[in-house]
């Protein structure tokens, strides 16, 4: 039932306590957290640095603005409502279509204006933010995701999580939503995590609930045929976030837009550990190797280093 902890250590598996002490606590300076914890701020700094992000359509900061919600949503049929300081995908509402007075979720559920009103009201009162602080709701353009992923995702945008350690892409995975995860790309809610080869962008392994799967549980497609296009562009984009965030241990979530290519969806200063299971590799080995490199390399050299050392040969 239990794994031998010494074996895990030998494999270089990063545990939660070590992550908290040495990587989050040791590499991420607290003063930079607001940049990634607040998605509005992230968007601003990313845009300023020329990093591609989904377009921000509106922000709602006060309950009083909700009275004008109908006007704000005029002409918007495909959008995402999310809390600026939310975590774990909480409070995110995706609208893919509009039919008269109804807003339609990816799973076909029809919402009325007052449902959206309620969600935003919850966001503003801080229900989804860390520590219950009053928050801001963002309305973002819905990413029209690349059809290449349609086969591997159920009602949602699959996103690519890249762990950037000290500016080097260390590990990557594709997170595919399933029926069980309610269209969300969170592994603990039942989404499938697919480990991605750093060199080629090809799928390595897939796991759901920590156990291996070969096919998507809802669409039935084989993960081994999966290959992510624009791979080099994606990891370059991810690695470039190090310069703007100054965070040594960073999770970068990227989506592929049909027209715009890779976009940064959000940044995470406390990326999780499930990525190791999807890659069947411990993160520590890679982190230790990166620790030995000189710090002065530029983005493309760092990416080249990662491709050389972490790619499957």
């Amino acid at each position: 039932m239990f794994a031998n902890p010494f074996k895990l250590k030998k494999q270089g598996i990063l545990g939660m306590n070590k992550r908290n002490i040495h990587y989050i606590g040791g590499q991420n300076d607290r003063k930079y957290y607001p940049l990634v914890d607040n998605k509005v701020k992230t968007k601003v700094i990313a845009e300023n640095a020329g990093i591609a992000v989904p377009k921000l359509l509106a922000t709602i900061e006060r309950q009083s603005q909700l009275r004008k919600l109908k006007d704000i949503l005029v002409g918007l049929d495909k959008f995402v409502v999310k809390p600026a300081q939310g975590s774990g995908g909480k409070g995110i509402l995706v609208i893919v279509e509009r039919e008269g007075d109804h807003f339609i979720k990816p799973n076909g559920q029809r919402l009325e204006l007052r449902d959206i009103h309620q969600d935003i009201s919850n966001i503003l009162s801080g229900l989804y933010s860390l520590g219950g602080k009053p928050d801001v709701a963002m309305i973002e353009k819905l990413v029209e995701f690349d059809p290449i992923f349609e086969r591997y995702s159920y009602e949602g945008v699959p996103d690519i999580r890249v762990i950037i350690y000290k500016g080097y892409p260390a590990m990557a995975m594709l997170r595919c939503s399933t029926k069980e995860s309610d269209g969300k790309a969170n592994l603990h809610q039942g989404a499938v995590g697919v480990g991605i080869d750093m060199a080629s962008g090809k799928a390595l392994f897939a796991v759901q609930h920590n156990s291996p799967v070969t096919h998507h549980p809802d669409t039935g497609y084989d993960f081994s045929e999966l290959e992510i296009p624009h791979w080099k562009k994606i990891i370059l984009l991810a690695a470039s976030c190090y310069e703007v965030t100054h965070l040594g241990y960073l999770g970068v979530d990227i989506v592929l837009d049909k027209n715009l290519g890779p976009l940064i969806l959000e940044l995470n200063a406390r990326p999780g550990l499930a990525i190791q299971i999807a890659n069947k590799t411990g993160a520590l080995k890679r982190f230790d190797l990166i620790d030995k490199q000189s710090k002065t390399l530029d983005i493309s050299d760092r990416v080249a280093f990662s491709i050389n050392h972490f790619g499957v040969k």
Partner: protein
Amino acid sequence: MPRRFQVLLIALSFAFVGFFLVWYKVNVLGIPFLPHEKSSVYKVGAEISFEGKNKAVLVSMALPGAQDGIQILSEDVASSGFGYAEAQTENGKRGEWSKRKVVGPQILYYSLEVLIEPGEYNPKPPIESFEQESESLSDLPNTLINTAKNLLDDVRLRSADTHSFAAQLIQDFNAKEPSQAVKILLAQGGEAKLEILYRLLRYRNILVRKVHGLYLESARRNIALTPMLEVYDGKNWQLYDLNKGKVTRDKNFFIWKQGGDSLIDVTGAEKSNIRFSLNERQVPVQYLLDKKELLEKAAILDFSLFSLPVSEQNAYRHILLVPFGALVVVLLRVLVGLRTSGTFMPILIALAFMETTLFAGLIMFIVIVGMGLIIRSYLSSLNLLLVARISAVMIVVIMIMSFMSILSFKLGIKEVLTITFFPMIILAWTIERMSILWEEEGAKEVFIQGGGSLIVAVFAYLVMSHPFVSHMAFNFPELLLVVLAVIIMLGRYSGYRLSELIRFKSLAE
């Protein structure tokens, strides 16, 4: 690794200081390391209140003297701005407070710690010089005197000796349907039962004293002294409760005042009143008997929690257990990896369990949170703002709690009445969080986190309610340094959690 070294150094020095102090207390001062046989120590408090009228005030209160079978451990006077002195009078000590100019309502406190000494109670030997003025009842009208005489003659026929006479007389006065004579005496004598009985007994030339005191029972507040009569038959003194008759086990009756002097005299103020309170706690016998000696021996005990008033000591009894609960939380989260909803919510639940008992507490918690979740799911469809919704949930929690209390009271289930110990704000937040969790992540996550919280709470309860732990926590508060050291060390533990050994199992193969 300088930071790691620092942490280690701090933790080790804390642990060393903690253990050293424990060793010193056990081996040099002789405080028992293991919980001992306990006995009750009562804190008896008197609270004198009055309203100053911008005049000089003198308050004089009768103080209890030494008595057999009950040992006075300590005495405490709290009265800001008042001068305090003790005076010896014919009928015992009196405490006197004085102040030149007193305005507005005032409260004076006087308290004693007393211990019922182990062993048999031996009544006092008779006081040789006890002389009593004879009573002629001459101020009463003739008819009333005759009634009294008839009653006393009647009682005499029904009794064998002095004690049975006194007992019969008191019983007559307490009968459900008192005799005509008693009714007349009570109605026309114009005096309280105590005074009438006192005079009647003296009329028969029985040696009798008025006594006021308190039954040392469980905690009571806002009570008055119980009046009693003490009767001497030439050999023994016997106490008689005016309502219950003969007091057989007079050992737990603490005599505050003997004789006819007033309990308090207040000059220069109005609306004076005196109330008493009682508080009980369990203390190791051995330790108590040595306490005085110990205090002389070691100055550090003067700074220990024992020097605080009893009510504060009682509060610390609970507060000092919280760090042990926190240690359990840290252990279970850092080493085991249990997920809980709210970091320290389990400790608060565990504290509630300590009042309600574990089983009843668990059931009540599950029922309240379960019912709360159902009601919260309806509230969510009403589209309320967050603060209003949580307040609504809190009110619903209070209603569920009071309903459960009433229902259980009617059904005679006493345990549920302790439900009030649950911190309701925490319950309301728990319900809110769990309900959000349910909507966002499904029922499974609710059971994982709710179950995790309960498991941690149960473990924390088991540790905190263990007699050994509570003994150690209270008698050796320096152990907090050791707990602190362990928690600091755990704070730098970067190894795997037990749950991760399962989670990453596939990677170890």
